[in-house]
């Protein structure tokens, strides 16, 4: 579940303790200085906000999907908590005709929270399925609207079902607020939320969700099913939001439809975005910063500059310092950050990971070279009779090829010859009109991308698809995590050794998006190798490379493939590169295989020359 106990459990625990103490301690100091009831309320509110924002961070931060719906889930939890926790006497006043015999039921607040979590989870599963169906991925608009719709449904139902909710006017109020003495429960929950959020982010599921957030296509090509990880993140985040919302209701002692609506969704989102949505540290920082900013704005709005003890005769800027200034501050913060710093103050900087890199890791030595594998199970890739037609246009006609493990097979052809279509078919992006492909006789036609890579056919991308915000090492680690689960019959190579093998050891802590081109290509290769593939499919690995870079690439591809015992299928436009690297070559032209053979045979083939130079011999 955790790739590295020290990094993924130990330091997150330490980090959470520090974060917790910072937020709570800061609140305590503020409260001590001001020493009044409203300061105490403000701090309590901040701590509960922090729980809810951290809960939301688990979903938005790890999946990249913008959700307004978490406050809708919060509303569900809040109401469930309320109708279970308040006393029957109070219910007789507020909701005498509640359905399901709820009027007479009362349970302890703790149990009510539990019930609230369970009920809300049921809704979360339903919404999660809807999100998955809508093809939710990082930044997807339809998913966001679905979550927005959820927020409105809950609000609408809360307003228009007064028998259960007390409706818009009286709401439900109950006097259990004072039993939340010393905030012990809030503190426990807050610390737990921080810890859970950090542990999830470092866990296998969290890592895979983040990979999909960075690049859904590449994640699927590494065997990740984003929908599963998104659902996991959703459920976990809903649990925390539900607990936080129940505590909020408990704290205030009442619930109204508008408490969990647009304004609160806005507040929590701004808190998350300002600090940096991709990091728990950022979420906590955002809560602190926005609580402070709003409080300052509120008091400026009330008292103007007198807040600073300036007894001015004439109130300057009184057209700005008005009541409700804090709402404007929220809106301005949101738009301002989106325009000037959409990733927030901290981007994805995580305190405990910084701590780990600085103090926890100790010195590392570059692992030694890996020996080539010689006892790999033999595998055969076969594609036959593959045809693809788009409308009337035949992109591919009856194309076929085979490849054996240990072999490098090249596919080449001029622009528009059908190479890309062929790649799209055997990577599951395009369903062939006719034909099939298989590994060791297992038919893979029509499989999804993540199934293909789990079956042993792992691809790279022509235009480089790395998980940009993750480090070089983390990129490879993602693939290793999947391999550990789905490629157990193969020899799995250690992540550090693969990094060293690819010449990336010194770059291992850099973010993938900071790498230069050659290193990016090598990283893609190492990442694919970490999947312990039976076959690596390299799509134009030298596009944009100079001749000398291409030459070194030949060595690296061959070596990397031998290290994990994979066969290689390489598609490229550059005949020089292909002839240098391949044992056998297939030549495509106009959607058909026009030649097959060793590099020498192919180069001597008149049809190949014609296809390439368009010489008069053919046309």
């Amino acid at each position, binding site marked *: 579940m955790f790739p590295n106990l020290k990094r993924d459990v130990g330091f997150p625990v330490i980090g959470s303790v520090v974060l917790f103490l910072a937020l709570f301690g800061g609140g305590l100091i503020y409260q001590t200085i001001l020493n009044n009831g409203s300061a105490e309320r403000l701090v309590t509110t901040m701590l509960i906000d922090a729980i809810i924002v951290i809960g939301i961070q688990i979903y938005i931060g790890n999946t990249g999907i913008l959700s307004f719906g978490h406050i809708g889930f919060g509303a569900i939890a809040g109401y469930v908590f309320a109708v279970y926790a308040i006393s029957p006497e109070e219910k007789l006043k507020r909701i005498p005709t509640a359905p399901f015999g709820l009027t007479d039921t009362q349970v302890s607040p703790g149990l009510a929270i539990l019930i609230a979590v369970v009920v809300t989870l049921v809704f979360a599963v339903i919404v999660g399925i809807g999100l998955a*169906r809508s093809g939710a991925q990082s930044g997807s608009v339809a998913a966001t609207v679905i979550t927005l719709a959820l927020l409105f449904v809950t609000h609408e139902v809360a307003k228009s079902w007064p028998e259960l909710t007390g409706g818009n006017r009286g709401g439900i109020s109950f006097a259990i607020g004072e039993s939340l003495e010393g905030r012990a429960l809030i503190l426990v929950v807050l610390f737990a939320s921080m810890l859970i959020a950090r542990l999830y982010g470092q866990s296998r599921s969290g890592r895979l969700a983040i990979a999909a957030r960075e690049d859904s296509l590449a994640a699927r090509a590494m065997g990740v099913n984003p929908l599963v990880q998104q659902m996991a993140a959703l459920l976990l985040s809903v649990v925390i939001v539900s607990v936080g919302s129940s505590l909020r209701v408990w704290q205030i002692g009442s619930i109204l439809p508008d408490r969990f609506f647009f304004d609160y969704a806005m507040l929590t*989102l701004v808190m998350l975005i300002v600090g940096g949505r991709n990091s728990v540290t950022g979420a906590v920082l955002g809560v602190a910063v926005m609580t402070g900013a709003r409080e300052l704005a509120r008091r400026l709005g009330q008292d103007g500059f007198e807040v600073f003890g300036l007894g001015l005769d004439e109130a300057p800027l009184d057209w700005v310092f*008005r009541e409700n200034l804090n709402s404007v501050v929220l809106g301005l913060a949101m738009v301002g950050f989106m325009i000037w710093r959409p990733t927030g103050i901290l981007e994805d900087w995580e305190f405990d990971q910084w701590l780990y890199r600085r103090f926890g890791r100790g010195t590392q030595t570059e692992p030694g070279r890996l020996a080539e594998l010689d006892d790999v199970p033999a595998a055969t890739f076969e594609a036959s009779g593959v045809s693809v037609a788009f409308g009337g246009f035949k992109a591919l006609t009856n194309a076929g090829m085979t490849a054996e493990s240990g072999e490098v097979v090249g596919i080449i052809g001029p622009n528009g010859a059908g190479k890309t279509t062929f790649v799209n078919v055997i990577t599951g992006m395009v369903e062939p009109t006719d034909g099939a492909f298989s590994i060791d006789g297992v038919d893979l036609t029509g499989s999804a991308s993540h199934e293909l890579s789990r079956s042993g056919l792992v691809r790279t991308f022509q235009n480089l698809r790395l998980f940009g915000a993750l480090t070089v090492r983390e990129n490879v680690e993602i693939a290793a995590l999947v391999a550990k689960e789905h490629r157990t019959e193969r020899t799995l190579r250690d992540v550090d050794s693969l990094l060293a093998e690819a010449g990336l050891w010194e770059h291992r802590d850099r973010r993938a998006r900071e790498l230069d081109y050659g290193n990016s290509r090598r990283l893609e290769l190492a990442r694919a190798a970490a999947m312990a593939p039976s076959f690596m499919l390299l799509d134009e690995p030298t596009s944009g490379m100079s001749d000398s870079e291409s030459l070194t690439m030949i060595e690296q591809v061959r070596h990397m493939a031998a290290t994990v015992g994979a066969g290689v299928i390489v598609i490229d436009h550059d005949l020089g590169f292909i002839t240098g690297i391949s044992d056998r070559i297939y030549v495509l032209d106009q959607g058909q295989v026009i030649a097959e053979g060793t590099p020498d045979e192919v180069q001597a083939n008149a049809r190949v020359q014609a296809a390439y130079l368009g010489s008069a011999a053919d046309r």
Partner: protein
Amino acid sequence: MTELLQNLIDGLGRGSIYALLALGVAVVFGIMHLLNFAHGELITIPGYLTYWAFNQGWNWWTVVPLIIVSAVLSSLLIERVAFSRVRGASDFTLLLTSFGVHFIVAAGFLLYVSASVKPYPRPGWFADTIAVGSLNIEVFDLAVIVVTIIVLAGTTWLLQRTMFGLALRAAASDFDTARLMGVKSDSVIRGAFALSGFLAGIAGVFWIMREGQVTPTAGINPMLQGVLAALIGGLGSLRGAVLGGLVLGLAEVLLRSWLPVGIQNLTTGFVFVMIALLFIFRPGGLLSVPQVERV
């Protein structure tokens, strides 16, 4: 039968307003992939102007042009101040920017007007009905339907027959190529916002008349209906947006009349559930635009 016809007309009246709102959302979405959560502000702002104008002694004859003009100007202003700075940014950034704009406008009215409801008179003919056989048709519904038909016809003409319309469609289908042809990106985006504002202004005239009052958050409902209708029809499709609006309006009215009396006030909730089902079984909306995944 009579009741069904009656409901159909009511639904069309309601749906026409949604269709105009959705079309405005779709036009902007097509051109810069921005789902505009601030679209409702194009009703809030004219709403407050309406309140102000009636206090100044204006009447509906002069307020209607005020609503339309102010909606267009607001749309252009919001583009200029906020959206022009996030052109080409990620969808996440675009969504939150528009959400933030909604919030700033709402908070501005909260700050400088007040949270309380600001009423103004509805037009005198608002509740009038015309009897056609056994049907009682509301003049308001009739006006909405007629005006919507005229506006949609005009918009169709604009999009099909004018160079601006062609440029808009070209830019929506392939922005870079349209620029290669000489279409000016600034002009076409501003044009799209102006058109979106105009459509919101027409819808706003009826919305504002019907409400008879305005609050800082008055834009939330029209925004939601517009966005949902655009999504029901299929994001990116202009025809879909109109269709989505009509479907949404009809669904609301028909559902309200079919639901048992006890739970009629949950109509909106049920409409949402239906929409959710639609997305689950047809994720792209009614007239879905095929999405090609680029490698």
